[in-house]
Structures are given as C-alpha cells and as structure tokens.
C-alpha cells in the first residue's frame, strides 16, 4: 500500500493529538487563578468541641489563610499531610480544614495519627460547602486573601514545590 493512502489518517491523528493531551492531562492537578471571587458564605459545624468550626462571617482576618479539603478515605490527603504539618509548625500561614463526606470518628483518627495542622475544622457531609467552593475531589487547597478573596484554587496534593512556586508569591503580595 502506498504511503499516500495513509495521509488522511495521519492528518486526523495530528488534529486529534491536541484534545487528547488536554483531556488526559487536565484532570488531576491544576492550580486555578480565575478572576478573584469572594470566599463564599459557608457555615460548618466543628469536628472537635475544642477547635472552632468554619463560619465565613468569623473569617475576617488581617492575613491570608489556606482552606484545605481533606477526608480519611482520601489517599493523596495522607501524602500531602506532612507538608501541611510543616506549614503549621513553621507558622507560615493559618490552615483551616474542611472534612468532606467523612465519618467523625475516622476523621479524628486520621488527625490523631497524622497530626492536626488545622486551627479550624468544619464538617461537610452533604457537600454543600464543597459545591459552593467548586471542589470536585480531595485534596484541594484554597489560598484566601485577608479580605476574603479566593486567590488560588489548587486541585491535588499540596507540595512544597507548588507552594513555593504559586502560593508564596501571592502570600507576600497580599
């Protein structure tokens, strides 16, 4: 068979390569910096009696903070947890946690074993807050500015590299 019979096929494959790459690569990790929208109005019950829950009205800070979506059933959350602990220990930025679709006992166990980096923890069993935030999986981390604007929405585990590259510059700025 002559080569020129394959030309249409080659052209088609060439055209299809682009959407194929986009579909395969889009899903897992990305950091979104869409037009800054306000942190939505959410109220979540606390996990522990001693640690406050999440109430948007109380979150008016004078400095930026992180909101981290986690759950005991989420494997990648375990992978990123040590990094969150290091952020807490070095007091770089306050971290609030949203425990998504989890059981209280399992979540507490998770934090007992891996440590608790959160100064506030809210429970979201019905995904109400998650949908308000535009979350589609765990873990995800938001960087919120001092005046409650969402600066970054990172999907996937938070690593040192991503934090240094994407989060730090904005934290210094705001």
């Amino acid at each position, binding site marked *: 068979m002559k080569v020129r019979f394959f030309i*249409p096929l080659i052209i088609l494959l060439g055209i299809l390569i682009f959407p194929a790459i986009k579909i395969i690569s889009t899903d897992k990790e990305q950091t*979104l910096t869409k037009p800054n*929208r306000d942190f939505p109005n959410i109220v979540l019950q606390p996990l522990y009696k001693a640690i406050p829950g999440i109430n948007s009205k109380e979150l008016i800070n004078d400095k930026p903070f992180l909101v981290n979506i986690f759950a005991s059933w989420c494997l990648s959350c375990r992978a990123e947890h040590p990094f969150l602990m290091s952020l807490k220990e070095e007091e770089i930025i306050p971290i609030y946690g949203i425990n998504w679709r989890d059981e209280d006992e399992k979540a507490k166990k998770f934090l007992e074993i891996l440590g608790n980096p959160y100064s506030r923890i809210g429970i979201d069993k*019905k*995904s*109400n807050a*998650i*949908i308000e*935030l535009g979350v589609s*999986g765990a873990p995800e981390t938001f960087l919120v500015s001092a005046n409650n604007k969402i600066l970054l929405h990172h999907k996937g585990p938070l690593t040192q590299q991503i934090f240094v590259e994407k989060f730090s510059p904005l934290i210094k700025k705001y």
Partner: protein
Amino acid sequence: MMNMIKKFKKNKFTPLVKGQIPRTGLHKSSFKKLCIFLLTITFSLNANAIAIEKQFDDKKLEKRTIELFKDIRCMVCTGESIYDSQSDLAKDLRKVIREKITQGQTDKQILDDLTIRYGNEILMTPPINQNTALLWASPALFIFIGLVVLITIGFKRKNHSV
C-alpha cells in the same frame, strides 16, 4: 466449548448435529441464550442512579430537573452528566440542585452559579461566545476542508490519466 474450538482450528468439518447452526460452533438453543443475555446487559446499562432518589411529584418539574441534570457534567467521571453518574459528588450535586429548584431558581441561575464555581467545563454544551466560536464552527469547518480536498484530488485524477 474447547472441543469445538479445537475442531474448528484443525479444519475438520464434523457433520451437523440436529439444530446446529452451520459454520458456527453454536447450537440453536445456546444461540438463543446468548442473545437473551446480550440484550439484557445492553438494556440494563440504562438503569440509572436517579431511580432511587426522591423525585419531584410534579411530573413537569421532574422532567425539567432531569433535562437540567443532563446538561451538567460530572466533574469526577469523564464524559458523564450528573444524570448518568453514580458518583457521590454527582449524587450530592443532584440533591443541591433539587433544593435550588424548590427555592424557585431558574435553570439559567443554577447553571451560571455552577459556571462561576467550576468553570465552563461543567456545562455539557459549551457556551456560545467569542472564545468558543472556533469550537462550535470546527465540525462544519472540517467538513468543508474535507470536501475541498476531495474535489481537488478528484480534479487531479481526472487530469492525469492513471
């Protein structure tokens, strides 16, 4: 079954047993069973997750809700709408949307809200605006290019006698 395959490979044509379909290894009865099995699987794939949820009593409202569900992409399962998807996120999203519909929100409001939170990817049909104009035009564009190529090659063939 293995015997039939072996005989087939060895190219031995055994005389037809009564009821056997010629040139296959299958008997009429087993063929019937195979057909029933395949049909059952095919149609059971249409059983959807929504059947076990609390639906609206108002049939018209439920229909509108379902149409809305079909237009929203499930963010954790590539290609499925939240109507098709059985994932937890889709389930929760359906509940939340039902609540919003009960509160009186319009389809446009709900879709706009979701687009602000999740981006354009959450819509099954991408919006029509400047950015997406090329996307919408591309099927017609490709057909046009294909026709041009066909015609040009057609002319070339006519001019050179092969």
